[in-house]
């Protein structure tokens, strides 16, 4: 099992090694592609204190509203994007927030015009960008279906013909004559989705709108997409649901900051994207880590008046007191007779990092410095999840290691053979203190790392497990 995971991730890393395959100009022989975007850029104006237009005249006469703007007043949402979707294919667009996915969709839909380059679409478009846009709250669902349908390009007749089907699909039979303002947001979205999907477009543009109903409805939507695919329609799908891209799309494009960072086989692109997101998270965690340590160093209790100043009678509590343990915010304290100089986390390959995969090995290296040799010390380790639940805690004293000597620069390496945790963010307590609890250096929740997992299991701990079945039980392999 672990090997499976490991190999999966190894694949991903390999994919990541060669991600930025520039959008090679693909050549298609045969029919016109359904969507053709060539060298498109989109520049938005930034809102600034400056007046939108100097005068009315200049507003009407200036050839381009954008050309005259200084670069600091513009925002390039898309930068020289070219892509082609042949008829009958499904293209998934992935990327972080703000990478230009929705802008691309709007350009293809014709809602906004590119600042540069051309977009051409062959066939009737239906854009599922915002469901139920244009529903009027005061009038009934029935009337809104008609108006929305006509708005999306149907004739009155066509809406009449499909009306039953639309209502059926939206599961709205009982409420179709009630004014739309009385609908719940789910009903509103379902009706909007039902209308949009029944426009029967040749080109369907979908922007992250599938989370519109319960499980059952979502399945119905997915079935509808599958039907579209079967009938040879072209779909452009913008989504954060990477699983959908892998399952549904023939091809994927990864947008990053307005540029195409990779395109091609969905599995490969999704893999490369995930790896990149992890790297990004890694950087962010490292940054928060550094910040936490920085702010913690302000709280340092001076060595002259060690924890005794806080709790003179019971130094045990100062270090590990349970009341503190589960409530205390991150921080650092201790006398610094021994100082923890650095804590590094490293995974299977030994390189330090902050993002690890469930089931991998994790090494926590604690570097310490003791200017004077000491003989009374305990090295402790605590693992907490994001809610502050202690997942595991131990120290050398609990594990019956009797201290003898610690001097100079030393390292303690705490190895977890398999990080059997579910996906999430975890924090570490790392400490060195006396056997009675008197703290030398206590790092409270200062070290953060993230565990990634392909399985969306729940809880805290993932026991090593497997499934076996006896009798007549069969499964089909989940695609993807």
């Amino acid at each position, binding site marked *: 099992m672990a090997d499976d995971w490991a190999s999966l991730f190894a694949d991903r890393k390999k994919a990541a090694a060669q991600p930025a395959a520039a959008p090679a100009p693909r050549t298609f022989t045969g029919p016109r592609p359904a969507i053709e975007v060539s060298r498109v850029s989109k520049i*938005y*104006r930034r809102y600034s204190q400056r007046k*939108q*237009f100097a005068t*009315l005249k200049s*507003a*009407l006469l200036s050839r381009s*509203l954008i050309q005259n703007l200084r670069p600091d007043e513009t925002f390039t949402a898309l930068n020289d994007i070219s892509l082609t979707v042949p008829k009958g294919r499904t293209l998934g667009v992935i990327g972080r927030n703000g990478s230009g996915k929705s802008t691309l969709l*709007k350009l293809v*839909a*014709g*809602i*906004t*015009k590119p600042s540069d380059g051309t977009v051409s679409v062959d066939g009737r*478009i239906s*854009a599922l*960008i*915002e469901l139920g*846009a*244009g529903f*009027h709250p*005061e*009038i009934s669902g029935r*009337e809104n279906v*008609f*108006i929305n349908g*006509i*708005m*999306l390009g149907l*004739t*009155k007749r066509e809406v009449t013909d499909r009306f039953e089907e639309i209502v059926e699909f939206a599961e709205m039979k009982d409420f179709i004559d009630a*004014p739309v303002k009385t609908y719940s947001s789910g009903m509103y979205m379902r009706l909007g989705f039902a209308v949009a999907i029944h426009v029967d477009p040749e080109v369907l543009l979908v922007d992250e709108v599938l989370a519109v109903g319960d499980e059952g409805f979502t399945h119905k939507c997915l079935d509808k997409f599958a039907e579209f695919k079967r009938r040879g329609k072209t779909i452009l799908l913008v989504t954060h649901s990477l699983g959908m891209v892998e399952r549904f799309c023939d091809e994927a494009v990864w947008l990053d900051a307005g540029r195409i960072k990779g395109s091609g086989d969905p599995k490969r692109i999704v893999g490369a994207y995930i790896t990149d997101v992890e790297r990004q998270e890694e950087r962010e965690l490292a940054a928060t880590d550094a910040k936490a340590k920085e702010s913690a160093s302000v709280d340092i209790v001076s060595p002259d008046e060690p924890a005794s100043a806080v709790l003179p009678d019971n130094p045990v509590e100062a270090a590990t007191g349970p009341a503190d343990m589960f409530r205390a915010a991150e921080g650092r304290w201790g006398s610094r007779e021994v100082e923890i100089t650095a804590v590094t986390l490293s995974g299977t390959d030994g390189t330090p990092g902050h993002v690890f995969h469930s089931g991998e090995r994790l090494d926590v290296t604690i570097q310490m410095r003791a200017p004077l040799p000491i003989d009374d010390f305990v090295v402790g380790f605590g693992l907490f999840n994001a809610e502050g639940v202690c997942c595991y805690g131990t120290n050398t004293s609990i594990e019956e290691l009797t201290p003898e000597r610690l001097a100079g620069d030393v390292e303690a390496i705490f190895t977890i053979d398999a990080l059997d945790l579910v996906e999430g963010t975890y924090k570490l307590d790392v400490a060195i203190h006396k056997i009675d609890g008197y703290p030398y250096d206590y790092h409270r929740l200062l070290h953060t790392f993230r565990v990634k997992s392909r399985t969306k299991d729940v809880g805290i701990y993932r026991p090593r497990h497997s499934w076996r079945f006896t009798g007549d039980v069969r499964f089909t392999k989940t695609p993807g």
Partner: protein
Amino acid sequence: MLHNLAQLPRYRALIQSLVARELKARYRGSVLGFFWSFINPLTLLLIYTFVFKYVMPSAVPGIDNYPLFMFCGLLPWTWFASSLTEASGVLISGGNLIKKVLFPAEILPIVTVTANMIHFFLALPILVVFLIYYRAPLTVGELLCFPLVVLVQYIFTLACALILSALTVHFRDIKDILSNVLSLWFFATPIIYPYLHMPASAQAFKKYLNLNPFTHLVISYQEILFFAGPFGHWKWLAALGVGSVGLFLFAYWVFDRLRDSFAEEV
């Protein structure tokens, strides 16, 4: 621009259903519903009749049936003024459509003007009843010109609405400026005073009234519906008709010019 203009007839059905929606939504939830379209002008007319018959009978010399006279000008003005007021905000309030649906934006001001025209039509029966009751000098020949006046006003209003709606997206102040301009415009139009019977003190302003396009619309309505005698103002009306078409083309050009910015600015 011309290409876009040529596309407009394709959206007839959409305009139709949006106008219907507009009208339905306005009275949805009220008990009397559509009857308000009759009741509102009726009460207005009754109040004016009462005031100008009993309270201040000789307010305007030379006009026998002042409330009816005033009403002939007031109804078209209401259509015009409320069209412009609504149109100035229509692209902003309809921003959802422009941003999220592929939708020719000019449909929104067109719907506004058309819906207000329907309201105007709904108020006409009241006017007709009173015209007949007071034996207004209606002639068939003059009445045949009535649709022409309506058409000219429609085009003129549409032109104004297109410009206003497009510019308001960029200059939100227009909404406030407009309400002031409209009240000035109202008094600069011979609606509550007759053009022909203006007092000597106002003669100096009279020639400027001719510069006001709406003057000619109102005078046309008044000549057709209220005053006896031939419809002598038709030349002015024809000129205004030609001017309105020109204005409409200009307005459409402006609108088309700014079209691409709507999705980003609203």
